């Protein structure tokens, strides 16, 4: 079980409160977690990754275990603590004005 924390605007879009808990098939990676997240909440498609390139949107950041994972390859394994559910995978909007 993977725990995912979404930013407030995306919790509204997904119509969830608090953490999201996901079962991820195979190894826990950014790609597999985001695939599972979008499968559970289709309204989130396109909000985290570009539809065409599948690249992380520029103002979206990923953190876990006090590490910035934003620039890790999408198929790199997530930390064991995330894979085990001990720590959440954090999705954040980059701080920017407005």
């Amino acid at each position, binding site marked *: 079980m993977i725990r995912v924390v979404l*930013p407030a*605007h*995306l919790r509204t*879009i997904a119509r969830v409160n608090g953490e999201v808990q996901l079962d991820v098939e195979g190894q826990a990676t950014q790609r597999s977690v985001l695939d599972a997240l979008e499968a559970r909440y289709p*309204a989130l*498609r*396109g*909000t*985290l990754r570009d*539809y*065409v390139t599948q690249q992380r*949107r520029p*103002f*979206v950041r990923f953190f876990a275990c006090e590490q910035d994972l934003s620039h890790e390859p999408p198929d790199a394994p997530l930390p064991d603590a995330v894979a085990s559910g001990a720590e959440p995978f954090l999705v954040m*909007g*980059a701080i*920017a004005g*407005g």
Partner: protein
Amino acid sequence: MSSVRVLVGTRKGAFILSSDAKRDRWHVSGPHFAGWEIYHVKGSPADPNRLYVSQSSGWFGQMIQRSNDGGQTWEPVGNKFVYDGVPGTHQWYDGTPHPWEFKRVWHLEPSLTDPDTVYAGVEDAAIFRSTDGGQTWAEFPGLRGHGSGPHWQPGAGGMCLHTIILDPRNPARIFIAISAAGAFRTDDGGATWRPINQGLRSETIPDPAAEVGHCVHHVAMHPSRPGVLFMQKHWDVMRSDNAGDSWHEVSGNLPTDFGFVIDVHAHEPETIYVVPITSDSLHFPPEGKLRVYRSRTGGNQWEALTKGLPQSDCYVNVFRDAMAVDSLDACGVYFGTTGGQVYASADAGDNWTAIVRDLPPVLSVEVQTLP
């Protein structure tokens, strides 16, 4: 008794302003989608309870929301706007090639007859259509690909397709406008398009006969006369009497012919409205006086409408999609400002009052006249 619903898109959410036909007491609902930029909200003429919303964010991209109950509840629908084929390049501000990149939906235009069919004008400029209530979208590639696309350049607000007008007499004819490429028309339901900019003159374009490159800000049409179009260009208010085949200037005695909005009275096809803005570098009303100008002669002769509008120290702007009319008798006219006011006139512009004064900057205003 009839009623009116004003659909307002702002920088930080959508608002729905409702009144009975007297239009003197308003109920304000919102913000819907608080914190998101709402470029446009529009209702289906075929089912007024079907509303479409363009919701976007610099962080999380584009969402499309749909309501089936007049805005009481919403559901997100499809947001996959992918250009057909390899999109290629257009020109950047400095004239260098720049890849076509989807940024947001500026304008949603529901079909006149089918609530599930809706057109979307997007940045970078292209037109998409959904025939399943917004769930899936397909581009009309013939517009971007008609030949001049690599020469299109963005206006200051981006290279946006901001105007979509459906011909009520000819379902195969659609007019669109792009900043800063110009106006285009299809006569075959969207398969092929051609520029309709003959007669436009833009100082920044050396070639007086240039077919593309004009910064068209908005185009309006009266549904009873689909061959007559009115245009607010970057500079110049223009008119066409042949569905855009040629244009002539009708700026007449306006204090400045720069501006963004233009609209037509619901019952008088020769009565049109603009809000003059000082210049392309001073996006506020001349002399700090917010004035709507009305022509009852289809242009050239204009009168200032000022009653109820601030006549000193007013430095707001009125964006291109932020004016609309209702179809009550007398015709109601509405516009929103970057200062967050939405002004309404229940007597065709003679007198104005602010429905609301302190919304976020207003991006768009549409009106539904309900039975």
